[in-house]
């Protein structure tokens, strides 16, 4: 079994510019908090999956390509300075949502395929759209505690949803209902009738959908704050869904022990 442990979220006081400077510091703080909560040596995780949504603000992509200054900072501040000295840093992102699901899927796959123990995942939201902030958590193989990953899925909307003149939010809405139906084992047409605000038809689920202005795009960090080991009771399940017109991700979690 693979579980998520000790999620830590750090969100900037105000969203806006200066995202790179703000967010790397927030991500480093989240990593340190996870390590402290888990009471494991920083040298333990052998993988650091950095799932960054969007691109570093205020940087010329051509400069990034040559100087890799953003990459240098990620490695120096998120790996070296936090003491994750045995971790191989892998960045999956800069491409927008579903960034958290992609990060979890990557870490989960590497742990299982290579029989590793712990991976650190850090999710970075670099700003537009949404709040500047970062979440970090451990993904652990073989643990009987924490939030069990029961199901993971990354899908893409139909190709016509990518039409250049279609707003991504409306493109996502239809596809996200399909994903919810898959995750919940529910009837897609029924879910469409309920739309986003209705509770899931499966009464055994605690569905923690998102409360921000743009529930599909902005809610990842907020959801990670909500889904943790204190707010979920033993046996509770939570479904985390994120996405845009480019791709949708869903994770179903179940609380294993108090």
């Amino acid at each position: 079994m693979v579980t998520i442990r000790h999620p830590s979220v750090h969100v900037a006081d105000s969203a806006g510019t200066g995202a790179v400077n703000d967010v790397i510091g927030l991500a480093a703080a989240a990593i340190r908090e996870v390590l402290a909560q888990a009471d494991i040596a920083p040298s333990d995780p052998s993988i650091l999956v950095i799932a960054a949504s969007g691109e570093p603000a205020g940087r010329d992509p051509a400069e990034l390509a040559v100087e890799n200054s953003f990459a240098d900072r990620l490695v120096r501040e998120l790996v070296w300075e936090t003491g994750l000295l045995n971790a191989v840093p892998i960045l999956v992102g800069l491409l927008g949502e579903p960034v958290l699901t992609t990060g979890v899927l990557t870490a989960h796959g590497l742990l299982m395929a290579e029989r590793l123990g712990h991976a650190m995942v850090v999710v970075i939201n670099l700003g537009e759209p949404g709040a500047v902030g970062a979440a970090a958590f451990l993904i652990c193989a073989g643990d009987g505690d924490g939030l069990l990953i029961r199901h993971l899925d990354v899908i893409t909307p139909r190709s016509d949803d990518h039409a250049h003149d279609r707003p991504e939010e409306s493109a996502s809405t239809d596809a996200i209902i399909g994903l919810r139906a898959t995750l919940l084992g529910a009837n897609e047409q029924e879910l469409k009738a309920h739309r986003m605000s209705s509770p899931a038809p499966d009464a055994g689920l605690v569905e923690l959908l998102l409360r921000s202005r743009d529930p599909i795009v902005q809610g990842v960090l907020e959801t990670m704050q909500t889904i943790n080991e204190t707010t979920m009771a033993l046996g509770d399940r939570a479904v985390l869904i994120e996405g845009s017109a480019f791709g949708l991700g869903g994770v179903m979690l179940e609380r294993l022990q108090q």
Partner: protein
Amino acid sequence: MSMPASATAAGSAVRLGSLAWALGDIVPIESILDDAAPADLLDRLVKNGFRACSVADEPATKLGARSVAATLACDGIDASEVDAVIYSSGSFGRDESAAPVPETRRRWAVRDAVTIDVLEPNGLLNCPLFGGIWLAGSGNLACIWRLARSLVLVHGYRTVLCVTADAIPRGRTQYRAMRDGIAVLGDGAASCIVSSDGPGPFVLEGVGQTASPRLSGLGSRHALQKRVEIMSGIRTAAKRLYETTATDADAYRWLVTNNYASSTRNEFAQIVGIGTERAYEGSVARVGHALAADPLINLGELEAASPLDPDQRVLLLATGPLTWGASGVRKIRSDALIQQARP
């Protein structure tokens, strides 16, 4: 042609094939030296094995698109059969002459470039995209293959298209000829299919990867310490590969590396325990160091020039500034197509 017994027995093995790559114009290295280059740099580069390098008149994403098209054509793979695309690059500049990005999609320039240039023309818009894997620099191929392997082995993906594409931004000639003479940076993309049941011709047996984050804190005056860390990292990556695949250096017929100076290639061979006579020179003289695409190009050229026998293995080193990967592949069939994309 029937498969050898060992391949059949490895029913759940991860297949690797449909190798392809795309390059820019091949130009003599004299033409890419900038005015500020040291007077003896050309001589040192030639002595180290460099004659020409690939210079593309298009962005990395366009190179990636051509390589992907060639990969799909290798074994007649329909885009609808591809379950996921893994795109790796350290070159995120967008060609200024490209079509303007629609307002509704302007949020993510990287995503726009990959979607519009790579996915859309190749019919891959319906595939999940795992992208932007770039912290390993020239060693990105190891990151891609680790992720692709796990998608196949753990998450049930059948066909994963892997592509790595890099291009030095135009006008950046000062970055092409490295002052220490260890490499001439070229532009290139390479791609392949990693799958659960594809035709091969290789099995991707394992990937050992390690990193030394402390290198990010060392400056140029720590050259010796950096060198020691790099050599130690490569040795550790190979050791992990040997351990996880129950192989040793003698199991590998060839060593394939990134396109560095011949002395560096031979040093790498000694570190991983493979004789320098088995270190494949590859495309060094013709392409230069096409960043992360090198090992895949060289594996393809090796197979095209001197096909491996079934069950022969190749060790591929994918090495960046602070992340190093050692991948082991084994040949399982001998009739595969490998091709370079046409400009």
